[in-house]
């Protein structure tokens, strides 16, 4: 017979904090936390002490003072009497603008180049290899400066369009002017414009929404929705009867007609650029700095995306293609229905991290004088007000937010397409 006894009750000893695995992790964490707090406290107290010595009280009051400088590239209205906050907002929008444009072109270019690198045509695949290696192995800052220099040196200046026998002429039936200041294209104008809505009154964050654009978007959205509805009805009919009604003409009409009617109602006409005074006037205008930055970022990132795309396609085993052809699929359907859906799962995550890189690299805009967030808030504003701490911290915070949003989207996507493995 055996007697069950409780193991001797262990009293808590200090050394258990280190040697007992039950407590050790807690000890390590507490030590780490204390270390972190001490480090943080040390940095903050140093900063406070230094700032007092320099006589600078940290304050964000400068954001509400007039900026005093002009920004050429702006998506919202702005003049030099607006606040520094407004200038930073303009800069942020410029960052987002070039980032979005860059991501779109970089993906398109990247996919094309990635596929062409696998082309059976020796010459083409070699050229693409040279392209990829050339762009991947030279710093992006150098490319930005380089492409900007090319644009400045090789495009005609507006003065070349002057005179009886101008050295340069406008392209596309005199509607587009390509100069070394930028590209001028016609802009849509409305005679019966609905006007703008002014949001946020007079604050630094105010912006105007064009009602014309809003109306156009609404109508277009509604017609697309209607068109989708017609299509799903056609699908249903096909499933029920086996005969697919012809719907393409109705769908085209549904999409196109309302928009055209709206545009006619608004009185659409085009404003063409024309050389007046020093510059081309009229039309809209994409500045050289924006084009150079956009091109350089897209070309650079496209080289990386091309490699990702190539890797993704090569990673799909050949058996997939063979099996699909054995089922009698044609080659474009094999690509669309078999290869790409699988390759995309591999391609998209690294591609999004390239988008992230592109967005961060857009901060090199100052090299070509494109006024992005780094150029306004962390550039001229910092320089004019002498508020290094506040501007740099604020700028970092904004970039961090953008990055976190992008990587949040990436994680969501990853969760959706994740293969469920064991």
């Amino acid at each position: 017979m055996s007697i069950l006894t409780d193991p001797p009750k262990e009293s808590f000893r200090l050394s258990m904090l280190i040697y007992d695995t039950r407590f050790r992790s807690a000890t390590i964490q507490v030590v780490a936390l204390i270390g972190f707090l001490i480090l943080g406290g040390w940095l903050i107290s140093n900063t406070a002490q230094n700032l007092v010595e320099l006589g600078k009280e940290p304050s964000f009051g400068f954001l509400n003072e007039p900026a005093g400088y002009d920004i050429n590239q702006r998506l919202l209205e702005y003049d030099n009497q607006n606040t520094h906050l407004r200038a930073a907002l303009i800069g942020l929008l410029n960052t987002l603008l070039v980032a979005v444009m860059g991501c779109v072109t970089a993906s398109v270019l990247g996919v094309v180049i990635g596929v062409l690198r696998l082309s059976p045509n020796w010459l083409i695949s070699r050229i693409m290899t040279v392209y990829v290696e050339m762009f991947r192995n030279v710093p992006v800052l150098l490319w930005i400066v380089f492409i900007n220099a090319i644009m400045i040196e090789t495009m005609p200046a507006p003065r070349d369009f002057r005179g009886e026998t101008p050295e340069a002429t406008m392209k596309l039936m005199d509607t587009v002017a390509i100069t070394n200041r930028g590209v001028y294209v016609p802009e849509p104008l409305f005679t019966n414009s609905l006007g703008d809505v002014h949001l946020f009154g007079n604050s630094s964050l105010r912006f105007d929404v064009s009602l014309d654009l809003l109306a156009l978007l609404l109508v277009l959205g509604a017609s697309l929705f209607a068109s989708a509805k017609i299509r799903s009805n056609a699908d249903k009919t096909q499933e029920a009867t086996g005969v697919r009604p012809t719907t393409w003409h109705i769908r085209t009409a549904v999409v196109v007609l309302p928009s055209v009617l709206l545009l006619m109602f608004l009185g659409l006409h085009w404003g063409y650029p024309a050389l007046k005074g020093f510059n081309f006037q009229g039309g809209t205008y994409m500045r050289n700095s924006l084009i150079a930055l956009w091109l350089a970022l897209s070309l650079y990132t496209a080289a990386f995306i091309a490699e990702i795309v190539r890797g993704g396609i090569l990673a799909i085993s050949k058996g997939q293609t063979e099996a699909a052809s054995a089922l009698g699929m044609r080659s474009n359907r094999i690509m669309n229905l078999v290869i790409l859906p699988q390759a995309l799962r591999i391609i998209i995550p690294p591609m999004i991290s390239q988008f992230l890189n592109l967005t961060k690299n857009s901060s090199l805009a100052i090299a070509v004088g494109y006024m992005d967030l780094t150029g306004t808030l962390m550039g001229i504003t910092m320089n004019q007000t002498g508020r290094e701490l506040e501007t740099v911290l604020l700028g970092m915070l904004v970039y961090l937010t953008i990055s976190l949003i992008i990587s949040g989207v990436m994680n969501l996507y990853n969760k959706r397409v994740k293969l469920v493995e064991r």
Partner: protein
Amino acid sequence: MNKSVFFGALTVAGLAAGASAAGTLDDVKARDKLNCGVTTGLVGFAAPNANGEWEGFDVAVCRAVAAAVLGDSTKIEFVPTTGKTRFTALASGEIDLLARNTTWTFSRDVDLKFTFVGVNYYDGQGFIVPKELGVSSAKELDGATVCIQTGTTTELNLADFFRTNNISYEPVPIETNAEGQQQFLAGACDTYTTDASGLAATRATFDDPSAYVILPEIISKEPLGPLVRHGDDEWGDVVRWTLNALIAAEELGVTSANLAEMASGTNNPEINRLLGTEGNLGEMLGLDADWAAKALAVGGNYGEVFAKNIGENTPIGLARGLNAQWTDGGLMYAPPFR
């Protein structure tokens, strides 16, 4: 592993630097090296030559100060700074002296807490345009595209000028003078605006300088001068009076050619006081008696420095203009050495 070595070295460096929070003059003497902030490169004012030695008009001020304090114009560390980094470099003590064609303004003096010790070049902001544009006044520049260096007072002046005259413009911000020149030459901007001295220097290097004109309007006052931190008056005095010694030497006729002769004593008491053969001005500054003679021995007096780096016989070819001695109708006026 490498990391620890590195941080070890850093700690040592940090401790060494931390121990010396005395006056800048004592720091410089203890270090036996002057840290001088200059531009990353501006024709005539500061640029490294092929051997890596810095040369130029602003550099000459640094060298004179180094010679006056340390007796050797090569005991100097040039710290290239951008428009953005210059003030923090000075405020944080990374440099002892900033000689980077910096405009003396109220807010820099009062709000950013620097002491401008004087003016070594009186400048003003101007415009350069190609002749074929047919513009003869800056007020005709309505709607023009203007290349402008960012991070300077010039962009604020520009905004003010166009607002006062109620005309519009399109700014093209650029980082460096070299880029501005490139854009302007290619016609990417109608006019380039910066300090008139910079414009002249830039124009001098063009293929065909005569095809470009500098417009008559000078839209701002740009007194450029060396500056030091607020609150260290001993050091401020050293730099201020070194600069004044260069200017006074020109007025008094002391040149690098006759320096040795004059340093042995003349019958002009002010020259004697300046060169340290009479009185104890050097001692008052905490320097050797012949501090000014050493400073002058580097590149001569103000006029010689001017002529060598940016004067009419250099490619830059600037006239003295406002920067002539007051006796010649200019603004260079050194207080008496007494």
